[in-house]
């Protein structure tokens, strides 16, 4: 069970997160929607301390940590329980695909090299990139790099995987292939928090949808509740704008 309570964050004068709280149960797939600048990415980055929140607490399993005053040891423990998939892949440029996937295992979790190699190869095969295991990131397409990024996160089998707009840097025809992989990760029961604009993905896969705007959680609920009859005015406007743009049918 993962919970954030009263997270606050501001860059200089403007407040990005206003006292945000969120609860994630084991196996949940939380999708966070919202216009850009709503603070959804910042919230995600505060969870694994890529950003330092100004206030609030984070609980993963039994461990509770203060988001502001967390010691570097606590931060390390949290990072070893979470995994992150970046918008622009951020694969290690100096390592091959296989080495990228193994890095977390051999260095952070001190898994023996042989087991780590075996696990990494299986995960790469699972995302369909075993053939490319010795290729360097610059030799892979965007979609392939993102799938290696996902493999790198999944192989650690963390408590939760955080996806920061995993498909927005991809060209259209690669988006479907990457979403399929994320979907299969969800089907394996791994807890996930996904920040994205892919409405169809949210509808099919999400167990809970959270709509954020201006640093607040405006509304949260099951995909059906949010998409069929949103309560908050701002949610309706957002969905109306997005749905007319993608001429989606109402389920």
């Amino acid at each position, binding site marked *: 069970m993962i919970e954030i309570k009263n997270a606050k964050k501001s860059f200089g004068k403007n407040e990005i997160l206003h006292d945000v709280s969120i609860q994630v149960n084991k196996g949940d797939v939380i999708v966070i929607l919202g216009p850009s600048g709503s603070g959804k990415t910042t919230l995600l980055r505060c969870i694994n301390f890529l950003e330092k929140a100004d206030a609030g607490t984070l609980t993963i399993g039994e461990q509770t940590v203060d988001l502001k005053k967390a010691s570097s040891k606590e931060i390390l423990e949290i990072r070893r329980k979470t995994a992150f998939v970046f918008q622009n892949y951020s694969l290690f440029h100096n390592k091959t695909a296989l080495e990228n996937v193994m890095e977390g295992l051999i260095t952070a*979790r001190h898994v023996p090299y042989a087991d780590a190699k075996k696990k990494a190869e299986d995960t790469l095969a699972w995302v369909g990139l075993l053939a490319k295991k010795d290729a360097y990131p610059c030799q892979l397409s965007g979609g392939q790099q993102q799938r290696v990024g996902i493999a790198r*996160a999944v192989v650690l089998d963390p408590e939760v995987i955080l996806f920061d707009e995993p498909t927005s840097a991809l060209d259209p025809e690669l988006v479907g292939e990457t979403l399929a992989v994320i979907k299969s990760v969800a089907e394996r029961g791994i807890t996930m928090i996904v920040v994205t604009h892919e409405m169809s993905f949210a509808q099919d896969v999400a167990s809970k949808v959270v709509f954020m705007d201006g640093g607040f959680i405006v509304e949260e609920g099951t995909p059906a509740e949010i998409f069929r009859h949103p309560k908050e005015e701002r949610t309706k406007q957002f969905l109306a704008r997005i749905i007319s743009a993608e001429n989606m049918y109402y389920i």
Partner: protein
Amino acid sequence: MVDLFDWDRFFTNIPQIVAYLPVTFKIVFYATLFGVILALLVAVIRIKKIPILHQVAGIYVSFMRGTPMLVQLLVVFYGIPIVMQQLFNINVNRWDKIIFVYITYILNQGAFLSEIFRCSILAIPTGQLEAAYSVGLTQFQAFRRIILPQAVRVAVPSFGSDFIGLFQNTSLAFLIGVVDIMGRAKTIGTATKHVLEAYVFIAIFFIIISLLVKGAFYLLDKKLAYGR
């Protein structure tokens, strides 16, 4: 009127000059080995902006870049014995001069290389560091396994020209009597009244060194390309 250049003088000089090669190589070796360690340290301190150390490192780098190496040699050669005498009451005044030459070149290289490393570390996109943290690496592991290997590749070209520069200005030690190949060329000039031959040989020697270094660093750059 004055026969400036004479081939047989050119060839008689060579063994005399080459005999002093070890001095040059030793200075370059120590300066680079400890210079790199010191440079990495200073670069990390300046990037991490660690409270007091950061300011001290800033002044150190600014002094080393801002003053002629000649003066740095004097400050080390005459300054360190005074400081050692006052603080630890050890008399190092009469130590072998080459030690002070090593220390000067180590400190100087340390400053210049730290600038090169700092710029190359900053050139690595922050996404790499964040990715390393996200898979649970500690800051030190992230630096050693992900950032440094990529920073080295960025630093290679300027490291190469700095290394050639180091080779060329080891001659400064001549001022306190430590004779290297350039110093020997000068003394041959005064002893035999003809300096051009010795200097031409030095020029040829250093061109070869520069070609070797450039070649070696070119190959190193290829090796560190990571598929690019």
